[in-house]
C-alpha cells in the first residue's frame, strides 16, 4: 500500500540509520563479497560476469590478487642483433 507522508518520512529516517550501521534496508543490494550496502556514489557498484554486484574495494581487491599471481605484461616483439 502507498505510504502516507508520516510513514514515508519515518522509513527514510530508519533506512538512513541502517545504512549508517552498514546494513542494507529493503531494496538496497549488498556487495556479494563484503556485504556492505551498495550505494553507488559511496561504495561503487560493479557487476561481475556471474551477475553478482560488488563494491569497488572488493572489485579492485580481486583484480589485485590476480596481479599477484599473474602480472600483466604486454607482449613485445624483440629483434635479435
Amino acid at each position: 500500500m502507498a505510504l502516507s507522508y508520516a510513514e514515508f518520512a519515518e522509513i527514510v529516517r530508519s533506512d538512513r540509520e541502517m545504512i549508517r550501521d552498514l546494513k542494507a534496508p529493503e531494496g538496497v543490494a549488498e556487495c556479494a563479497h563484503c556485504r556492505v550496502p551498495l550505494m553507488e556514489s559511496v561504495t561503487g557498484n560493479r557487476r561481475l560476469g556471474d551477475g553478482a554486484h560488488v563494491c569497488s574495494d572488493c572489485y579492485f581487491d580481486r583484480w589485485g590478487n590476480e596481479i599477484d599471481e599473474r602480472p600483466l605484461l604486454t607482449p613485445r616483439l624483440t629483434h635479435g642483433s
Partner: protein
Amino acid sequence: MITYYLGDAEVKGYARDLARRLSAGPFPEVWLAMGQSGNRMAALVAEFLPEMCKQQLKVVRSAWDRTRSEVTFLDTFDSIDLTAVKVLVIDSAIHSGSSMFAVCEKLVTLGADNVISYSLVLKRNSSFIPTFFGVLIGDEDRSYFQLDELPNNRLMKKDGFGYIRPIIDADISRQTIRVGAEAVEVSFGDLVYENRARKSSVYLYMNGKDVCGYVSFCILGGRLFIDTVASGEEYRGRGVGSALVRWAETLARSCRCEVVELWSIGDRVGFYEDLGFSIVEGKKITYDRNTSFIYMQRKILYNTKEHAMNIV
C-alpha cells in the same frame, strides 16, 4: 572530472523551490521515489510542502533490480486510480536515464497519463530529461549530497601502507624485483625507457626504500591502456596490484577516458570477462602453441553511450 559537493543548504534550496512549484499548480498526490537517494530527496522536498499537500501525499518506493534490470515497486498502488491523479517520479541523480525512463514507462502501462519527474542531478548524456532538475553535470563527473560520510579516494580498503610515486631516472640502478608465480622480468631500465622514450606513465609503489610493485600505462584518445602491472613476491596479498590499477583507473577517469584496455594471457580471458572486460575481435597474438595474448577492454563508466556528445 569534476566532483560536485552539494551541501545541505544548497540541496534544501533546490527542494524548497521544487516544493513551491509543485504546490502552486495541480498538486501531484502520488510520488514514486526511486531508490534510497530518491527517498531522501523526496522526503526533503515533502518537508517544504504546505500542510494540506502533505496530507494528500501518497508515496510508493521503488528499487532497481540490477540482476533482472527492471524496476520493482516496494509498495503498492492499491486503491489509487492512476488514471485520475498526477504522479511525480523523483530521484536524486539521473545517470544514463534508463531506470527513470523504465519507471515512467511502467507507470504509463499501469494507466497513469499525467506523469512528471524530478532529479536533483542530471548527467549530460542522459537519455531521459525530467520535467525538473537541479544541476547538470558531465558524464564523468561525480556529485555528492545528502551523505553522512563522503568517501575519500583510497589506494586500499584498509590497512594501507606506503605510497605511489612516478618513476625517476635514478630508479634505473634498482635491482629487478621478483614478481608473480610466472616470473616476469622487467628491469627498472625497461620501465625508465617506457617512461622517457615511449611516454608511458610509470608509477612505483613504495614502502620505505622498497619498491613493492609498478604499473606502466598510456592514456591516449579516451583510452587507458595498461601495459605492465606487477607486485613484488614479498608483498603478495597486501593489495599492491589493486592499488596500482585503481590509481591508473582513477587518473583515466579524471582524463575523461571511456575505456580501459589490456592484453590478457589467453587462459585468463575468463577472469577478465568476470571483471567486466570483453574481447576486442581481431586482436590476438600467438607466441607459441601454449601462449597467446588476447586484447580486451572494459568501459570505465558503465553508463557512457556510443552516441555521447563530444564536448571538450
